[in-house]
């Protein structure tokens, strides 16, 4: 393997599922739809590097991991392992890959076979891959994961281990074949906090000692600094921001990352953190189009250039149209909520119910005419009227991901900033005060 060849390259990877699987859909006879679980994800993993993929449940991070270990076939894109795409793997390549890419799962309570002793659990991978010297290797690994003295643990079954001990056995099992890559899926989330830190620091130490690379998947940004140098934030199937861990925590750029970082509780009663203003939860990644994944919740969603509008009022209009488009508010439901049936009263009532922020001029009249169409039972026209005036660049074009070294953000706000930087001369020149990387100059530019 050449010096700079990444261990693992993920190239525009997509994993779509056919929808229509749950019972509600079947009852409602919905058309099968595409669930865009992983939707164009790219990253490289260098030797000895530890990268975190962080996102909320449903963001696609677990699907990504399952796709990486061959549990799902790939819908588009590719995974390249030490220069060979998995699409070209033969049987022997897969075996080699499975040996060298090991997984640590979330639940130490289920991932170990309850009938096997620690010795058996650790020896099993060695058996499968026909490796001798088992006892010695097993003891060595137990020592490395700090389950000492080995005698104390070798003959125990999982029921006689604490959560932290079990997870250490899982880690040992993943390391025993000397893999190149560890994929860790929420490895500490089931553990008590007092144990989480120990397991994470241990893992970090082991990746260094063993020359292993790691993709660490988690919902938890608060502990990520203990395990990964780089963080990628995932939202509805895509990476929205990647940066060095410290930088991402201190200065998140993408509106979603900002929301995520600012919602983390701070263990200090004297610190006055503001509660999140974000409402709702991520939508399902079904038929989601090409625009920004976060557009239905983003507080900074961008109005068209040619209209003047208060940002919060704009957010309300956009959310309302989203509701209509996703059929979450139909006329029937609205009538129930506002409890008036007369058309003109209905328009007023809907406006009162859904819009807190004041609108004026053409913005107001467009909204009123859309609501009138809605009250007349013509939802499509209502949507059309709103779309015509208020359509956002965030819905129509996917935000660019800037290929700056060590900093990527997929948001129109930041691609603009970046263009200014380039236009202002110097591009990625080190003009920022920290001075040594492109990140510095971008951050600097924003504050000018």
């Amino acid at each position, binding site marked *: 393997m050449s010096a700079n060849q990444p261990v693992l390259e993920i190239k525009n990877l997509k994993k779509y599922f056919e929808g229509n699987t749950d019972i509600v859909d079947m009852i409602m006879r919905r058309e099968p739809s595409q669930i865009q679980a992983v939707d164009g994800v790219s990253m490289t993993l260098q030797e000895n590097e530890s990268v975190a993929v962080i996102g909320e449940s449903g963001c696609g991070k677990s699907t990504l991991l399952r796709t990486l270990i061959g549990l799902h076939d790939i819908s588009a894109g590719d995974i390249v392992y030490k220069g060979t795409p998995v699409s070209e793997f033969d049987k022997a390549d897969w075996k080699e890959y499975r040996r060298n890419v090991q997984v640590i799962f979330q639940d130490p309570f289920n991932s170990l076979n309850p009938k096997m002793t620690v010795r058996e659990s650790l020896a099993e991978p060695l058996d499968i891959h026909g490796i001798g010297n088992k006892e010695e290797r097993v003891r060595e690994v137990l020592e490395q994961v700090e389950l000492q003295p080995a005698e104390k643990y070798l003959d125990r079954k999982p029921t006689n281990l604490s959560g932290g001990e079990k997870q250490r056995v899982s880690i040992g099992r993943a390391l025993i074949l000397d893999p190149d890559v560890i994929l860790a899926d929420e490895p500490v989330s089931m553990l008590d906090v007092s144990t989480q830190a120990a397991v994470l620091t241990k893992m970090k130490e082991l990746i260094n000692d063993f020359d292993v690379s790691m993709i660490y998947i988690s919902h938890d940004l608060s502990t990520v600094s203990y395990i990964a140098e780089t963080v990628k934030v995932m939202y509805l199937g895509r990476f929205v921001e990647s940066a060095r861990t410290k930088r991402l925590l201190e200065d998140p750029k993408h509106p979603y990352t900002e929301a995520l970082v600012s919602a983390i509780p701070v263990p200090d009663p004297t610190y006055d953190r503001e509660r999140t203003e*974000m409402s709702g939860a991520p939508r399902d990644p079904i038929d989601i189009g090409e625009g920004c994944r976060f557009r239905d919740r983003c507080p900074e969603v961008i109005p068209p250039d040619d209209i003047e509008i208060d940002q919060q009022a704009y957010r309300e209009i956009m959310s309302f149209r989203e509701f209509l488009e996703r059929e979450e508010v139909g006329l029937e439901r609205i009538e129930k909520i506002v409890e008036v049936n007369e058309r003109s009263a209905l328009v007023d009532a809907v406006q009162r119910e859904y819009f807190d922020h004041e609108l004026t001029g053409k913005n107001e009249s467009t909204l009123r005419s859309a609501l009138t169409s809605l009250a007349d039972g013509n939802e499509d026209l209502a949507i059309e009227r709103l779309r015509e005036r208020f359509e956002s660049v965030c819905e129509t074009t996917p935000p660019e991901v800037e290929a700056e070294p060590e900093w990527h953000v997929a948001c129109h706000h930041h691609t603009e900033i970046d263009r200014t930087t380039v236009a202002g001369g110097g591009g990625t020149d080190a003009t920022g005060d920290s001075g040594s990387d492109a990140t510095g100059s971008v951050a600097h530019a924003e504050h000018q």
Partner: protein
Amino acid sequence: MSEPLLEVDDLTVQYETDDGMLTATSNASFSISEGEFFGLAGESGSGKSTLAKAIIGGLDDNGQVSSGTITYRGEEIQDLSDKELSQRIRWKEISWIPQGAMSSLDPLQRVSEQALEIGNVHTDLPDEEIRDKLKETFDIVGLQESRIDDYPHQFSGGMQQRAIIALALFLEPELVIADEPTTALDVIMQDQIFTYLDRLKDELDISLLLITHDISVIFESCDSVAIMHASQIAERGTTDAVHANPRHPYAFMFKEAFPDIREPKRELEVIEGHPPELMGEVDFCSFADRCPWAAPECREGAPPTESVEDGDPSHVTACVRKEEAYEMYRSDASPIDDGSGAQSIAQMGEVD
């Protein structure tokens, strides 16, 4: 200060097991005032959930209050029959947001039907009034009133959580007990839920007993806190005082085990081992096997609960070596002579 709404005094709760009486809560005392948010923190195995269940008479069949009292508005309730609790206390006075709340909605019933069921058991209100109350509460937790007749699957995850909170609150209880209400939720959703809980406090003057392993959440959202370890309350006081001057080794180590996003490189404390299962009377410090400062005297009796002199009259701790241990911890003197165990992993570096 107003008269406490709930007072737990010297409470011991035990479970009958094949091996004898397992003590889940041992001589625990605390009180909650009107409008107060009180956090009960500890690892799994600390006894915090048992304590909460004891308050509403929800212990498993083999569990019992062995001694001590639970007083609600001046009335002892620990010996009330299930029927009495159900008719007079549960839901109307003290309600409950269960652990793993997401799965506590019945998928086959409309939310309003579930509310009627609860309302009919615990009150004699007419159905229409119950529905009205549910509507009002939906409004407070940010759900549209018309949605009370929806089935749970028609709600997104966050909305379900809010519907559950609404179900706990619609009969206007004085005290809500929430057992890990946001564990397993993503942080943004957790924060949304607490936004609503804050609002309940402001608008309805409700008291909350929040049970969680996550002390960050308690420090942010509660007025007072009790930190429990293996059946005993190690330390309790206002969150400000316990945060600023923790004295019990478990309290300060537990606190330091939590990451703080503001200091991503801080070394996190590691508490080796796990809370022991305790049989019979707990006449020793239950942290002794894990405590780096344990001395023979720690096993000679349950440490008395004593005041921490720091200006907060409610601040108490139960450690026989409280000042010494804290001093040693502060000055970073190695507590363990043979250098084994306890802190070795904590000293390992973190990531750049």
